[in-house]
């Protein structure tokens, strides 16, 4: 009974993500990521890799301008003004600005994903291994999920994009993942086809998936190794170590004090309690050190 469970674990229920095995069964796997912004050079290789791996449609210049691009991963640019706003300096007063900040933004695979409860047909749901899955075949295109996504990382097929792959380019499509037609929402899956493949292999060999066995396309392509992907339930994995080092855990918001003096780790829009599975490491500028 969900109600009983709610009352039994009331404190835990209020504090997201700590409800225990009953609520979210992450027995063996919980996929997570850490991205070091200090290493990110904004080269967009991850974006390209994502296009190639996930059969992302190329929408063309005109439609891209209309914000219809289908890039599951995008490099966001923010211009750091260098003004100390806390000291009352205005951004326009400081010149030259410090330069661009890059942040690769993709689906954060929130543990408490705002997109999941709003889908009328349950086309988006949470998998036991912590992924925020999107079932293309079930999607009817109400687009509520994208509206409710604080990261705006859900991409809608506003048109049919068959023409993205004029013959013989359709030959280079990844056979492990479907090509989506118009009217369907899609988003980053943490390269779920690779995860499934590795899990199947591990199952056949009667073992668990080893750290490093799965690489997401963006991670694989990143020239500076800024992206680390792995199993957060496995304490020895690189990503779990990264998380631990930064004292990052589910169920703790920034206000509750994982932000230590030394830590660089943060999760985006944490105050919304979405519990993202992606941790970013702040950029440290030479001038700041």
């Amino acid at each position: 009974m969900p109600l009983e469970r709610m009352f039994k674990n009331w404190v835990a229920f209020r504090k997201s993500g700590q409800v225990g095995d009953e609520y979210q069964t992450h027995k063996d796997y919980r996929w997570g990521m850490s991205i070091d912004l200090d290493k990110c050079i904004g080269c967009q290789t991850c974006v390209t890799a994502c296009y190639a791996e996930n059969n992302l449609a190329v929408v063309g210049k005109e439609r891209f301008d209309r914000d219809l691009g289908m890039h599951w991963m995008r490099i966001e640019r923010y211009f750091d003004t260098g003004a100390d706003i806390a000291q009352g300096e205005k951004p326009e007063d400081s010149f030259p600005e410090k330069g661009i900040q890059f942040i690769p933004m993709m689906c954060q695979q929130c543990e408490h994903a705002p997109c999941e409860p709003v889908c009328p047909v349950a086309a988006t749901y949470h998998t036991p291994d912590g992924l925020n899955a999107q079932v293309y075949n079930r999607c009817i295109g109400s687009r509520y999920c994208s509206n409710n996504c604080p990261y705006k990382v859900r991409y809608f097929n506003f048109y049919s994009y068959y023409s993205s792959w004029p013959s013989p380019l359709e030959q280079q499509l990844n056979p492990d993942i479907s090509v989506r037609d118009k009217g369907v929402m899609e988003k980053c899956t943490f390269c779920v086809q690779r995860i499934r493949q590795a899990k199947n292999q591990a199952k056949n060999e009667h073992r668990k998936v080893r750290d490093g066995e799965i690489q997401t396309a963006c991670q694989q392509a990143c020239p500076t190794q800024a992206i680390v992907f792995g199993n957060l339930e496995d304490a020895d994995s690189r990503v779990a170590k990264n998380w631990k080092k930064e004292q990052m855990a589910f169920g703790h918001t920034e206000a509750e004090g994982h932000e230590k003096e030394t830590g660089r780790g943060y999760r985006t829009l944490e105050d919304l309690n979405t519990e993202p599975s992606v941790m970013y490491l702040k950029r440290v500028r030479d001038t700041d050190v």
Partner: protein
Amino acid sequence: MEEEIRKDIAWAQINRDVLDSMMAPRKTYWVIIALCLSIVSVGVYAEIHQYNTGMGEAQLNRPQMWGLYIANFIFWVGVSHAGTLLSAALFLTNTEWRRPVYRSAEAMTSVALLTAAIFPVIHLGRVWDLYWVLPYPNERGLWPNFRSPLLWDMAAIFTYLTSSMLFLYYGMIPDLAISRDNARGWRRRLYGWMALGWAGTDRQWRNFRKGYLLLACFLLPLAVSVHSIVASDFAMSIMPGWHVTSLPPYFVAGALYSGCAAIITLYIILRHTFRYEEYLTLPILDKLCKLTFAIAMIWVYLNLIEFASVWYGHDMYEKEVLIEKAMGPYAPFWWAMIILGFGLPFILVIKKVRRNMIALIITSMLINIIMWLERWMIVSPTLARNHEPFSWGYHWPGWVELSITLASFAWFTMLFLIFVKIFPSISMYEVKEMLYHRRHVSDRLVRDLPETESVPVKE
């Protein structure tokens, strides 16, 4: 008061006047129908184009996943509110002046809901899979997501549509019997079938009264809940500007506001085209205006507390959205909505305006345009200033959305016009009751009849 319904009007005269309105219409009627049909066909063309090409034709984009369709949806659900809600509420409070108005108001409800129901469908990316939101049993054991406000929405709209149509039809049965007795040809067959063998016996009237009361009691809370549920589409999300506790009452107040204005518009049009001056009298219009004013003030108040809570709540995102509304590219529409929406109802305070048809029709239409803008200003600015600055963006409707929007107005008008030609648009039996009551029960109180009326009439 002057211009009340004549006390000595004959029952047969009432029948004749109302039944005449259903007979051969004037030329202008056909002109308007033709005009509406052509606009609707443009809308249908736009929808076919969008269906074939993709939702991108609606000029939506990534932050702006919802646009005018959803705004239209809220608007039409809102318009639908005043009819049934007011009819039921005024019935339960025994308000006498409701009697000549309520039929057309309820018809407006059903017609507006039929218009509203189109929009969630049009707006879907894969319309052909619409039935997936229905909880139908299937071999794969797939169910819709009952946590989704969209599902509640669908359930609420269908419930409201069926029950308000039932209410409309139920209240019409005695009138359908009158029509049956006076009609020939297909009309006689239709009314005969629909009147369900109404003979006006004592027992029938008794049961009819009870049933009507029951339906009214059921509809009143239902109508309030429907727009609250539409509001939860927004309030249940986490988006700044949508995630507001006061949104459901705000929606209901806004719905009543626009609905009352729509009733005034239709009232004047009906009064003029069908020469209903005898029945749709000025004192009733006067009361409708006062009601509109009162509801407008509730709406203004809810607006103000929303701003205040955003401003004093110091939520960064919420504030950003409010500032965006006031200073961003949508500012002209927003300010028009605020200034006119707050200011216009005040001219209804002036008695001269309440008696001036032209002033009233302009005011009521303006109020509806403003309320339409209000719905758009709920949907778009929030998405324009979402949590993620990199994804900020605007949505400006293109020809597809605009023509479908226009077509919805034409569709509404067309359905309403068809309704008033097929069914009696004034409740004959209730007007008679009202007059009977006035003649025999409260003869001394003719002058201020509505306030003192409290005893239900028995025939």
